[in-house]
């Protein structure tokens, strides 16, 4: 029963990480690509780390896995914010659908 839960969490995390990778590769714009790598990537890695809790079920492992998860959830938006602010301030060429964001810059 534990093995089934661990397998579900692992495969779900792998699928979400692959979705984030496809978004990184195929999306047209840096601001849109950051959405993929921040949200889907954090969800995928969080699911894969949470599967460790069910597999080992020791208190030390659970505390460390929850620590990794809290750290990821706290730092991924900060990193995305720094990249996005730098990209927005530098006036990198965006795609046509996000053009109205940058009209204030010009």
């Amino acid at each position, binding site marked *: 029963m534990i093995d089934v839960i661990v397998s579900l969490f692992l495969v779900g995390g792998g699928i979400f990480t692959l979705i984030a990778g496809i978004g990184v590769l195929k999306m047209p714009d840096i601001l849109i690509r950051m959405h993929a*790598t921040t949200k889907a990537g954090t969800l995928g890695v969080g699911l*894969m780390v949470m599967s460790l809790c069910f597999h080992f079920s*020791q208190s030390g492992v659970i505390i460390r896995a929850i620590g*990794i998860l809290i750290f990821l959830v706290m730092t991924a938006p900060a990193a995305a914010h720094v*990249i996005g602010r730098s990209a927005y301030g*530098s006036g990198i060429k965006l795609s046509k659908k996000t053009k109205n964001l940058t009209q204030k810059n010009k």
Partner: protein
Amino acid sequence: MIIQTSIILTGILLIFGAFCGFARLLMGPTLLDRVMSLDYLTFVGIGGISLLSIYFNDPIYLDIATVFALVGFLATIAFARYADVKLKRGKGVEQLDD
């Protein structure tokens, strides 16, 4: 038995995800695209380390994942600040290409 199959399946999914990230790292138009794909590759690395921890049945790999998350976050912040400082010194977007 099911856990071996799911470990192999998840490894294949992570390899394809890392392939997509490396493709964006190679052909990203600007420096910030490359920084963003390195951030994503850090995520793939943490997932791969936790997969390895289940495969070898050894929870000591979780410490490596913690350190990897810390170093990846600091590297992303440092690269993004570097690009920001480079812009503020008056170089245009064209110099940001490499």
